[in-house]
């Protein structure tokens, strides 16, 4: 059975009590010794490994050998369509409050110019123009609360 996490395909084939797992050009035998409350005790090619997994929608938080990663599981064959052209949309790098909006729509902007200031956890984050261009659309207002990854400004 094939699954994709973060563009990496893994194939798991049941073999009696264990699984044969293939990732890229690596193939290992995996046996689950115990699985409880998000903790997995595994035997991977005979070696004991304790791992922790949590899931939230398509996200998987995985800790192995003290290293934690967040993986995203691909949902089916088709990739999720993006509503905005990433090249022209500036998104919030963190959740917070829009402290000030320093530009108006149709305004010509220069690379590095501060377009907006966000505030979260008492920190100030400046949203700067990645290149020269024009403000096409402002999607948020001063005083508004924004989520991480929310589109703030479209530029062209």
């Amino acid at each position, binding site marked *: 059975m094939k699954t994709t996490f973060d563009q990496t395909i893994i194939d*798991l084939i049941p073999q009696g009590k264990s699984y044969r797992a293939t990732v890229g050009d690596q193939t290992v035998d995996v046996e689950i010794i115990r699985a*409880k409350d998000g903790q997995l005790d595994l035997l991977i090619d005979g070696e004991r490994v304790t791992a922790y997994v949590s899931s939230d929608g398509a996200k998987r938080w995985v800790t192995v050998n003290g290293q*934690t990663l967040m993986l995203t599981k691909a949902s089916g064959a088709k990739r999720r369509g993006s509503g905005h052209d990433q090249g022209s949309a500036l998104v919030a*790098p963190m959740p*917070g409050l829009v402290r000030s909006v320093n530009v108006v729509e149709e305004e010509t902007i220069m690379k590095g110019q501060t377009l907006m200031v966000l505030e979260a*956890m008492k920190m100030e984050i400046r949203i700067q123009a990645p290149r020269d261009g024009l403000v096409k659309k402002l999607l948020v207002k001063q005083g508004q609360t924004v989520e991480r990854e929310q589109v703030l400004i479209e530029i062209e």
Partner: protein
Amino acid sequence: MSMFKKILIANRGEIAIRIMRACKELDIKTVAVYSDADKNSLHVQQADEAMHIGAASPKESYLNVDKLIQAAHASKADAIHPGYGFLSENASFTAAVASAQLAFIGPSADSIRAMGDKAESKIAMKKAGVPTVPGYEGLESETDFKKAADEIEYPVLVKASAGGGGKGMRVVNNESELSEAIESARREALNSFGDERLLIEKYLADAHHIEFQVFGDQHRHIVHLFERECSVQRRHQKIIEETPSPLLTPALRKEMGEAAVKAAKAVNYYNAGTIEFIVDPDTMQYYFLEMNTRLQVEHPVTELTTGLDLVQWQIRVAAGEHFPYTQEQLTQRGHAIECRVYAEDPANGFLPSTGKLLQYIEPKGPGIRVDSGFTAGSDVTHFYDPLLAKLIVNAENRDAAIQKMQAALKDFIVHGVVTNIDFMQSVLTHEDFTNGRVTTRWVEKTLDSGSLLPPTQKRASALHIITAALADLTIVNPKSSIENRNEPDPYSPWKQINGFRN
């Protein structure tokens, strides 16, 4: 004065819980306060009683003096512990507490006022003969700042006179950055402290941040409790602290400790306080930076090496007790390190990460202490500081403490928000850290040079992928899929996992 019967803790998170612990040990009842966002927080659950004080925004709750004093009266508390941050260094709060006939667990309003203003305190320290960083106070026009910067030479630091915690502070590398730095530092200062005055001083880029804990009672007895090395910082905020400092010699330790006591005496200090110095490792010159007139985040490393419970002593001296130890009786034993576990993403400029904690497992073992304010299921919101927990270890010497910390970090599991745990692991293994050569700009420089494991390039290992896929197999098991249809999270049917092994 007799011991307090009930203390209101005007704070939240791990420090509120730490203070409640000390109260419980001293047989004192505790009152928690909470905002809308903290209704279900751990500090509310652990208090003897809890009072709601307002909306999530700190101004409406944890910074609201009137509501806090009302809550203290309503709950019949006889003292207030401010913790750190929020109102802990606000002289008018301290004064308001006193005029409401309540005891304040901390220094006097006068000491806070004298040290709270970075400009005024610098002037006072110069007068007391404590070395300070070259610079100017009380400048207003941009022209004056420019002139001062030219004289003390770039890089310079502009910082809020009323500031602290890295807020309202900007490093200026050359003249072209000065104007915007002044403007944004002023704005942040006004926003955070309601005061836009700035001072300017020489920025010592490759310096160690070494601070001395001081402790005094209300009977004019004051000592220092040795140093804490806090040079591992990002955005001027500490991430890893330790004691003893690998830089100090016994002679310099003694000299700086005496200077710290002199600084504290100059403002008639009592209760717990910290004198921050920066030390130039090339010249071994030290300069007074500022005094924090409160308990520090990193106080546990001092507790573990001196054997004193600082929070208990804060309460006892606030109730009028004598602090019984002389300077000669105090010693440092072994080595302690603290790692601050933050909900922040080192690969995304250390920006805060918010969300629900899906898994939260703290490490345990001999010599391991965790001060935390969260548990599995807790929400990490954007309203407050992203500190999840403090992991503190102590061992017989520095090498053993580093080893213990590395193992403990590996056992610290946090899912649901991105943390700096992996990042701190790579700091601890870096040779600059093990050789004690880290200065305050080291994190920034080392990340840029790429010699610190670059978190952005961290790739999912085959093991991570295999684990994720195995965990997912449980949900395609036809036996469990029906039962799990109504579960809030269909991806966590761990109790069903036995079904797929056959």
